[in-house]
């Protein structure tokens, strides 16, 4: 009680709308940015909701180091997406560009519960997910601008970022297709006896896709270690969930597949849920995790995002539930960092993003020969033709 009052006096606005974080034990308090790994125990404010499964405890263990890392990583992701917005408007990025700002807690919280044996596959809102799996800001920017230092050599674009070594399988442009693909990754993990799970991510728009239910059926039949992670940002492009789903309780839609509903704006809740679900999946098979999250931008850069929702709604979420602000408040309230230290982290993150952007802008376009590379791994001397079949004929490498 006293802690809460003290923080209010300090002017920090707690997440009072969701209840106060009650620290059961403090980490190393005092001056200086604490990067201690000493455990800090916290209570997740928004309760989990379970479908055919007992939800995990709301008590989560973290540390100063982890919270600082959450803050830094999410801040880099936020800056990266905002920079992408400007790049798109100045026509450095063409075609489609789907931004993730607002949803950072989902991929960051997930990574805290996963390791390199696990796999992630997602849809086209993949820039930050790619980063979470070990990608760099440089290769994201370069790919967005179609340059040769892009993670897909400039040949994929915004929707097609991959990192096989890091267990990231994209980056998929067809809504819902990634869900059976994710079940397939889990199938392979089980086949090869890798102690890992696959997180097949999809949105509230994709949640009605038939192939998702086909994948759920087979993965439940075969006990595949797959987690179906629904990033419910409440709008499938311009269509609100209540207009597209008879039942927008996506965590229940698996029917015989158990589900959890999670506050997707809370890194720690996401981490707890994924940790719990991973343990479950390795023993029993699939689970659905519905992450209640929000995107600040429209569906893509060609959507202002305000014709189907009010600006008040957007700014309201930003004020009440922003994932970065939540961690900031935790860091301050637990005296892990001071305001000045956080500003330093922010400055460093901004610089990291700006440097990457500058370097990406210098990266050249791919060579013309790349038009015909990577058609096949093994071409048997097959030929491919350009628009002018007499001028441009290539024996595939």
């Amino acid at each position, binding site marked *: 009680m006293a802690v809460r009052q003290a923080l209010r006096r300090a002017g920090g606005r707690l997440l009072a709308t969701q209840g106060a974080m009650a620290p059961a034990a403090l980490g190393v308090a005092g001056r200086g940015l604490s990067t201690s790994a000493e455990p800090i125990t916290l209570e997740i404010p928004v309760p989990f909701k379970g479908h055919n499964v007992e939800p995990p405890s709301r008590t989560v263990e973290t540390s100063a180091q982890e919270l600082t890392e959450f803050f830094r990583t999410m801040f880099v992701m936020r800056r990266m997406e905002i920079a992408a917005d400007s790049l798109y408007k100045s026509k450095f990025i063409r075609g489609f560009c789907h931004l993730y700002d607002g949803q950072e807690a989902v991929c960051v919280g997930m990574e805290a519960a996963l390791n390199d044996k696990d796999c992630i596959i997602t849809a086209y809102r993949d820039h930050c997910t790619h980063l979470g799996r070990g990608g760099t800001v440089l290769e994201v920017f370069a790919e967005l601008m179609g340059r040769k230092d892009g993670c897909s050599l400039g040949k994929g674009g915004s929707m097609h970022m991959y990192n096989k070594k890091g267990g990231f399988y994209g980056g998929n*442009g067809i809504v819902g297709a990634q869900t*059976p*693909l994710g079940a397939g990754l889990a199938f392979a993990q089980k*086949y090869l006896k890798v102690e890992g799970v696959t997180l097949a991510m999809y949105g509230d728009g994709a949640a009605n896709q038939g*192939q998702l239910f086909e994948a759920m059926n087979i993965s439940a039949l075969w006990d595949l270690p797959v987690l179906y992670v629904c990033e419910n940002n409440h709008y499938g492009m311009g269509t609100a969930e209540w207009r597209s789903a008879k039942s927008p309780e996506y965590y229940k839609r698996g029917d015989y597949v158990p589900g959890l509903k999670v506050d997707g704006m809370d890194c720690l809740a996401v981490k707890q849920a994924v940790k719990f679900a991973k343990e479950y999946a390795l023993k029993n098979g699939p689970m659905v995790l519905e992450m209640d999250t929000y995107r600040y931008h429209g569906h893509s850069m060609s959507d202002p995002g305000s014709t189907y929702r009010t600006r008040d709604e957007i700014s309201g979420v930003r004020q009440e539930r922003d994932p970065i602000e939540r961690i900031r408040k935790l860091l301050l309230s637990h005296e892990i960092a001071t305001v000045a230290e956080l500003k330093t982290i922010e400055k460093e993150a901004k610089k990291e993003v700006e440097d990457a952007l500058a370097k990406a802008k210098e990266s050249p376009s791919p060579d013309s020969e790349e038009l015909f590379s990577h058609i*096949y791994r093994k071409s048997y001397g097959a030929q491919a033709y350009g628009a002018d079949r007499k001028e441009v004929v290539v024996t595939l490498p």
Partner: protein
Amino acid sequence: MRVCLQRPTILFYTFIDKKIHLGQGKGGCSVRRPFVHASPLSRGMADVAVVADKMNVRDALNSALDEELTRDPLVYVMGEEVGQYQGAYKITKGLLEKYGIERVRDTPITEMGFTGIGVGSAFYGLKPVVEFMSINFAMQAIDHVINSAAKMLYMSGGKISVPIVFRGPNGAAAGVGAQHSQCFAAWYGSCPGLKVLMPYDAEEARGLLKAAIRDPDPCIFLENELLYGVEYPMSAASKDKDFTLPIGQAKIMREGKDVTIVTFSRQVEIALKAADILAKDGISAEIINLRSIRPLDRPCINNSVRKTSRLVTLEEGWPQHGVGCEIIATICDESFFYLDAPPERICGADVPMPYAVNLEALAVPTMDDIIRIVKRCCHRGRAAA
């Protein structure tokens, strides 16, 4: 392990822990361990095919799957009825008993779902062989074949390859109607990143399937239901467990000098018979069996037409934008001035496949059509030198 059965009707894993009396009444056997009870359909047939001097296409495919499953533990088979039922067309007979349920997977009737799962597992590094009970059903999964599999290596800048084989019976059969008779060679053949193979006889079925399974790229393997039961001689070389045929190479089935007939799959047989009859009329036809729709063996086709100066393409699929169009186009690109007559296309009729037997016969090229059209081609244009 002793199998104690009084009635052969159990189709699932069973733990039996009570005494079962044998018919003789001499006491029972007491067993408590998991079984796979073979289905009555498979009793006596639950053996994989053995490579022999003569094999039918079905057994040739079966032997190829068997050898590749043995050779590479990353290979597995998936599809409807491939396991316990022994395969809708018995292509996979005996494989479940030999390799177990981890590697021979029966799926529900959800093509999009299980094809996606197959492709996803190939991303990770497994080598699935996905059976479509009919390639017509693959249309439900075509997004995964093209968008998830064929394009992935390119979109990922070379990071993720997809060593998957999709296979199944394609094209016209007998009396199966419009939705089960479409030929997909042309549609799949137009996609960069995909390999499209169409075997004719048993040796080709075996060699090309083994090559496809070993290939690191997505292959779609289009079989022909009417050929499954047909026997062909097998060469000594084809019996080797490492026998493969090259992808992207056509085969000249019969050499000739007056006209080149380019075809594939079942029509190869009909073309060969037609060539015998044409020979009696003094027309020497060269028959090219494509084997590989993509990559297409353009040098083989062009060299042949440069020799014969006349081209007839032959396929069962629909004419507009068909395989024949690409063959003619490639001749026009590279060998136009060698032609003595305009090329002719022989294709299936521009109709959904009808059911009535007389109409069905009108919808697919016959030997008479081939003979008439080849003669027409040879009697037009400039006289042969």
